[in-house]
């Protein structure tokens, strides 16, 4: 098994046996809109897993510590904290409904006992502090045990309060609210490697914030044309480089990626690098631009590569080569002959995300029918797996799935025409160090682990 001998790096996607670990969420046939999961993110150490949903709620799971008396629950993720992050708003002035849906969650690197994350909806970013309280003070001078304040003049003797243990309480408090900086809908947030700043990107602009300052942000990218009639592309995703605090990338609806260097100028309208794969003009169709739109961009952990997801494929780019990607992985090429109906039912506009494993040897992205795909970059093998309650016995191995594009359907294959396009896996996350993955299937969160774990 690749990587088994060395320390640190777990093997890539395919020498592994992926097994069901847990599933969270209701089994209802009727899914309430609010329960649809809209983002999934592991913390930097992987011990916390956050989800956001369309109802504006955040649920954070924590990995259980190894416990000899309960060996089976080692590594299980259980609810740690849950809170309402954003609420629906109506902007009467602009006649705009502002959805409470959480578009993205990003964790801040840990600097103290408390945990911090940024969560954003279409318009407002919030910094949340999640802290634990497991002690309470007894014998206060100015307060009764039930919290009522005592009249200071009634205090005749002083005593030192004693700290007594209490049941663990996890509190979430909004520490900063970054509002009113985006005219269009926020699609991305990214924390800088300097741990002091972060970016937020909407369809036409990218802003730079300082985590401590809420009344000011700097606009660093603005692609709004003077005449809106001339609008040809929008920003679809943006991210800071994992190590170089001056470098960011943003992707567009035309399938291009621009790398910007904040050292070169205050306004990064002129890119430093421009990544675009040349297109064969004879193969151009009505759908070409739509399916080339990049729905997600992610730097590798090493910072040497970046990955983009468009409708039908995942591409890995070497930052040193702008002319074309170094790898292209087909996610569901069989959909190319279904583009007409996918345009009619709007599925062609679905925004799939993608992610790297901890050592950048494998990548993962979602598809339809609750299928998700993993690509091993070293062995060049790929696998299709399914998130389904039918295969949810503890530690049950996941069987590879196959889609039959046409012709005779083999046993165990699923035909393209019987794929359920309402079961889309848009959001997936990979633990930063281990082979544990979190897959959001509409209103359910699946956690899968490598058997060796």
């Amino acid at each position, binding site marked *: 098994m690749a990587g088994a001998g060395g320390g640190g790096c777990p093997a890539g996607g395919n020498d592994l046996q992926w097994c069901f670990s847990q599933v969270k969420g209701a089994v209802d046939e009727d899914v309430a809109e609010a329960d649809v999961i809209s983002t999934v993110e592991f913390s930097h150490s992987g011990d916390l897993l956050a989800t956001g949903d369309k109802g504006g709620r955040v649920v954070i799971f924590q990995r259980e510590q190894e416990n000899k008396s309960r060996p089976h629950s080692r590594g299980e993720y259980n609810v740690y904290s*849950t809170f309402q992050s954003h609420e629906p708003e*109506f902007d*009467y002035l602009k006649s705009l409904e502002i959805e409470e849906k959480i578009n993205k969650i990003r964790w801040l690197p840990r600097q103290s006992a408390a945990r911090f994350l940024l969560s954003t909806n279409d318009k407002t970013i919030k910094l949340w502090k999640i802290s634990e309280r497991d002690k309470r003070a007894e014998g206060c001078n100015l307060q009764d045990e039930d919290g009522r304040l005592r009249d200071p003049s009634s205090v005749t003797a002083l005593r030192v309060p004693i700290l007594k243990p209490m049941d663990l309480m996890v509190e979430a408090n909004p520490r900063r609210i970054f509002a009113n900086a985006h005219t269009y809908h926020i699609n991305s947030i990214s924390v800088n490697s300097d741990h002091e700043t972060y970016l937020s990107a909407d369809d036409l602009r990218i802003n730079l914030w300082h985590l401590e300052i809420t009344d000011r942000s700097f606009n660093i990218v603005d692609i709004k044309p003077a005449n*809106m009639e001339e609008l040809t592309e*929008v920003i679809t995703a943006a991210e800071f480089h994992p190590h170089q605090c001056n470098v960011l990338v943003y992707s567009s609806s035309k399938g291009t990626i621009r790398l910007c260097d904040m050292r070169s100028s205050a306004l990064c309208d002129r890119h430093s690098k421009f990544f675009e794969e040349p297109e064969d003009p004879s193969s151009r*169709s009505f759908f070409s631009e739509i399916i080339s739109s990049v729905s997600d961009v992610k730097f590798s952990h090493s910072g040497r590569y970046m990955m983009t997801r468009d409708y039908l494929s995942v591409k890995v780019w070497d930052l040193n080569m702008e002319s074309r990607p170094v790898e292209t992985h087909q996610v569901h090429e069989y959909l190319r002959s279904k583009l*007409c109906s996918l345009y009619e039912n709007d599925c062609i506009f679905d925004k799939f995300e993608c992610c790297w494993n901890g050592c950048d040897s494998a990548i993962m992205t979602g598809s339809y029918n609750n299928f998700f795909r993993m690509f091993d970059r070293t062995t060049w093998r790929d696998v299709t797996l399914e998130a389904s309650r039918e295969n949810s016995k503890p530690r049950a191995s996941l069987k590879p799935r196959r889609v039959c594009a046409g012709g005779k359907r083999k046993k165990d294959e699923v035909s393209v025409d019987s794929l359920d396009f309402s079961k889309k896996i848009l959001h997936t996350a990979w633990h930063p160090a281990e082979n544990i993955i979190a897959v959001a299937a509409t209103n359910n969160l699946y956690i899968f682990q490598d058997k060796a774990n």
Partner: protein
Amino acid sequence: MSAEVPEAASAEEQKEMEDKVTSPEKAEEAKLKARYPHLGQKPGGSDFLRKRLQKGQKYFDSGDYNMAKAKMKNKQLPTAAPDKTEVTGDHIPTPQDLPQRKPSLVTSKLAG
């Protein structure tokens, strides 16, 4: 004579099949254009993008609403029939017409 016609027909069919095989995308495009002949020439262009930028637009004009309220003075503004979901004609949208958006009071089922 009769021998030539089937040959020409099969050559055309062959080209069509070739097109489909070499470009399923173009076949899909042809299907779409057949269904919607007036579909714009620039598919990814401004109309589509501008629609995307305007997501969330609901029609309530505070100016219209307040002017109408002032005109009516003491009378009640006509409100839409409960089953009407669209605002049309002389009916001025009121805050009551907008769909009620309440925050989730229920805890997420993921935490259940």
